[in-house]
């Protein structure tokens, strides 16, 4: 976290009074959330507490019907397309096309964002996530962990202000978790903001983060849930 005497970091996310409902079910009830550059907010909460809905709202996938949401100071309701350019959302789905290779998937993603990375840069991003040996193979047959890594490679290309992650550690092996955490630490150090939903305080622990608890649509800053105890040696 930034030290007390450091200059006040800019707000990346400024969400005020956000409500969301599906039919008659109110999923978010007046959520306020501020995330500054270099901060990582981790959302804890039980299943159905509204974590994924809040992330979908922050990604602008769901339209905000009540409240206000500024991303990098821009009103997302007015500048939907521009604000989407400033974030990367990796949810339960990886949004990849199985018939495209990792390099082609990344190029497709870059073209939709008006980025123009060179072939070398695309291959570098694929190599950075540990998929260099399958860079030209269709991603259809990739394991869930490999698909997750490829999805995360988008972040390396887009260099967004805000990274939204829904259960990012699922499907990753121990090496993958360590790699992801190292990447997130670097991203934070460069001033990137992260909002993440997780059920896994153990894996998040190495990150400098601000835990928040979401319960029945109400978000409050709270200590993380207790970490799992180490299993006794056999």
């Amino acid at each position, binding site marked *: 976290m930034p030290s007390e005497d450091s200059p006040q970091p800019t707000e990346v996310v400024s969400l005020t009074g956000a409500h969301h409902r599906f039919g008659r079910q109110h999923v978010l009830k007046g959520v306020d959330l501020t995330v500054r550059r270099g901060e990582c907010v981790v959302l804890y909460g039980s299943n159905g507490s509204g974590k994924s809905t809040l992330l979908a709202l922050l990604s*602008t996938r*769901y*339209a905000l019907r009540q409240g206000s949401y500024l991303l990098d100071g821009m009103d997302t309701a007015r500048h939907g397309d521009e604000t989407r350019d400033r974030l990367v959302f990796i949810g339960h*789905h990886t*949004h990849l*096309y199985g018939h495209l290779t990792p390099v082609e998937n990344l190029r497709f993603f870059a*073209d939709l964002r008006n980025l123009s990375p060179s072939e070398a840069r695309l291959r570098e991003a694929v190599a950075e996530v540990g998929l260099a040996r399958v860079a030209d193979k269709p991603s259809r047959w990739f394991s869930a962990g490999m698909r997750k890594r490829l999805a995360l490679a988008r972040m390396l290309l887009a260099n967004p202000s805000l990274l939204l992650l829904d259960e990012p550690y699922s499907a990753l092996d121990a090496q993958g978790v360590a790699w992801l955490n190292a990447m997130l630490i670097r991203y934070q150090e460069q001033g990137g903001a992260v909002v993440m939903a997780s059920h896994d305080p153990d894996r998040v622990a190495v990150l400098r983060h601000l835990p928040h608890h979401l319960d029945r649509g109400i978000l409050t800053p709270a200590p993380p849930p207790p970490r799992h105890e180490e299993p006794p040696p056999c």
Partner: protein
Amino acid sequence: MLKAAYRIAWKDVAGDFRRRATLSSMLFFAISVLVVFQAAFEPDRKEALRLLPGLLWATTLFTTLVGLGRVFQAEEEDGAFEGLLLASVPRGVIFFGKWLGNLLLTLLVELMILPLTMVLFNVDVWRQAGEILGILTLGTVGLTGLGTLLAAMTQGARSRETLLALLLLPLTAPLLIAGVQAMAGILTGGEVTPWIRLMVIFDVIYLALTPWAFGWLVEE
């Protein structure tokens, strides 16, 4: 913006060539329809010339329906459609990309079935082939334009192919009638211009309204 639409279309067309899914299904379906028509009517040359516009348009309509049934299939894979909607491009551009990909595949099938029809029905219209393809293109622009929107609408429905056909047929009937009449005019020397004008009007209406309707449809 145009680059994004082109890339979406490229992704769909390249994907189809790799999976050999939509194009081969459309082509197989078109050949089956033409063979059945030929076997059922066994027309002589004069009769075949009279039937040709209807045959071509019926085949085009059926094959378009096959293609439209699959236009959003790749997007169902691993939340890919959601990924598209998270892109920083207007919804209308996404629509144009999906439409363009489908249009290219359908035109490719039409390009292949025209000579096949001439051989199967033993009619010689090579000299008018360019005009026939022009009329088919004009009709296919509107047919796939409205069809892509309806495919997006029926994407989540259980019996989406049936629903798609039920919605598309009545809404594109004027365009199809104009297409048949324009083609008949070319083959028999009748009036063509008013029918082409009507087709252009319908194409403009469909393509002006559908991107907007698509944007409204996908917003949650």
